[in-house]
């Protein structure tokens, strides 16, 4: 029968069904893991070179110009600086891998102990911020896309242009002036959390740093959501859906939303990565006890093991979020 031959013909050139999808994904993931290990190793070399292997006398930099030669010798021995570079690096790397980050030069306490609470505080702040950023960005981005080139969209674009361009510390200072000191004195201008307390026990201290993080994050993410929504709304399949006579609600939520969401998910992950860099400035500005402010203090105090540990940590976290974004993007494409 003619129909049967047509079926055969039509099936002939079809790509195989999705049985091998999982196998196809295994390789990219494995490759990513491998390059991940290599990249992290590169990071460790850079951190080591930038700190311990710098030309010039590390001990003098740490102790300052007025240090006596006994102090210098003592420190060199403590840090292993009198060893050859390669063995210094291997020692250091071994310690990092086993979680032993050494002792703080300033306080003498183990770095891991000093940092654990700080990490917890920073993570709390980031997680709470993301909880606000993601839904807000979706709603704002969608509204801006649907009302594209209308007053709402223009106002949104203008605002985001200014917010994107303004450094975090400027936004933060203005927010402090507005709510903390000059205009309304309703919130504490600094966000000190006493040691041992969980950050959420002091919600008033969290409002301003969170507000700055959310404002900056929403501006970034909602623009990506807006652009990917506009892309989708202009696509031929949305045009065909209109032509088929479907309702606006069905088109927006069933046809457009899943496709527009896909590129936004990796973007959220990238944003989380950038929050790490942004946290340095924001935590310093509000004197919030996270790892960002710890880094500033450590650099100011020439606390070598602290600097090494924090930067390794930040780079690794930043890298992981980036990889996650990449992976989500690949998963999405293979679908």
């Amino acid at each position, binding site marked *: 029968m003619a129909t049967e031959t047509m079926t055969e013909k039509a099936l002939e050139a079809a790509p195989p069904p999705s049985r091998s999808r999982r196998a196809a994904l295994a390789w990219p993931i494995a490759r990513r893991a491998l390059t991940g290990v290599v990249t992290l190793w590169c*990071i460790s070399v850079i951190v080591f070179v930038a700190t311990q292997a710098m030309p010039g006398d590390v001990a003098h930099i740490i102790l300052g110009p007025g240090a006596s030669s006994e102090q210098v010798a003592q420190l060199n021995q403590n840090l292993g600086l009198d060893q050859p570079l390669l063995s210094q690096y291997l020692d250091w790397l071994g310690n990092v891998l086993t979680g032993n980050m050494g002792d703080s030069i300033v306080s003498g306490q183990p770095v891991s102990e000093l940092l654990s609470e700080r990490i917890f505080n920073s993570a709390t702040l980031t997680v709470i911020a993301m909880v606000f950023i993601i839904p807000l960005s979706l709603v704002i981005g969608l509204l801006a896309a649907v009302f594209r080139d209308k007053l709402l969209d223009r106002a949104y674009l203008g605002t985001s242009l200014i917010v994107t*361009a303004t*450094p975090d510390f400027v936004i933060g*200072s203005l927010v402090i002036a507005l709510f903390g000191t000059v205009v309304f004195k309703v919130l504490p201008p600094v966000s000190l959390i006493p040691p041992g307390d969980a950050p959420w026990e002091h919600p008033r201290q969290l409002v301003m740093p969170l507000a700055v993080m959310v404002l900056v994050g929403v501006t970034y993410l909602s623009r990506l959501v807006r652009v990917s929504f*506009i892309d989708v709304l*202009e696509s031929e399949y949305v045009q065909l859906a209109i032509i088929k006579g479907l309702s606006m609600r069905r088109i927006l939520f069933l046809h457009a939303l899943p496709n527009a969401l896909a590129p936004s998910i990796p973007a959220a992950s990238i944003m989380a990565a950038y929050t790490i860099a942004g946290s340095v400035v924001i935590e310093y500005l509000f004197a919030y006890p996270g790892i960002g402010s710890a880094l500033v203090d450590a650099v100011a105090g020439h606390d070598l093991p602290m600097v090494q540990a924090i930067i390794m940590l930040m780079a690794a976290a930043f890298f992981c979020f980036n990889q996650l974004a990449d992976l989500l993007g690949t998963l999405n494409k293979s679908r």
Partner: protein
Amino acid sequence: MIRTRPREQGVQAPPRNLTRRILTSPRTRLGLIMLLVMILFSVLGPFFAPHSPTAVLAKPYADPGDGLLLGADSLGRDILSRILSGGANLTWMAIAATFGGVALGTAIGLIAAYAGGIVDTLLMRVVDVMLTFPTIIMAILFISMVGPSRLILVVLVAIGLTPGMARVMRGAARPVIRREHVMWARTIGLSSSRILMREVLPSVTSPLLVETGLRLMWSVVGLASLSFLGFGVQPPASDWGLMVSENKDGLAIQPLAVFIPAVCVALFTIGGNLFAEGAARVIGRTEGARS
């Protein structure tokens, strides 16, 4: 509500005057004017400073008066003089870092795209590793040991801008390199450098302009933030980012010492962003991409 835009028939090459149209669109013009005003203000400002920016002339946070038009800062120095002379370093450093980063990134991106294969893979791996360090963290890392020299800051920010730039330019150049006119140039045996300069580079000037605007914004943000954290221009020299952090504790008493430098930095970066977004918008309209 939902509308679709007309699609061009076939792949239309960008018209030759795209670059000119970018430079004459109202948005990019406003951005350029803001940038120029801020650059002029920074460069000429020091000559108009009524006092030395480092001289202690009054009590900390003194009110305006006594020849101090805007009052005194946390150490009793003239705020106006510090503002007028606080942009010069930021400006030259940001411009130098931007051009360094843009030039290096463009070169890496174009070479990777053109060479392809192992060269491309290697360059992009290096770029990936570099991207693992946010600029500001990398700068802090090196400055923590070497100390905040201005030249090193410029180099660090330029290096920080390079990997992103290389990625974008590689992405922009790849479709151009697959275009037939580039293949044709290869088949008649034109040299690689000639092909890159004559056939490829002219076709990526639009993204180059957008990215340069963006990177200028990021350099200013980065350098000002580093100053704010105390890792940039060192006291007692004056600098807008530094002024914000020096005077933030006196915000309630003397808000101008924080506001004005903060606004100066913001005007500079908003100018850069206006330029970049205006350019992106013109390209989007022309090439059917979205802004």
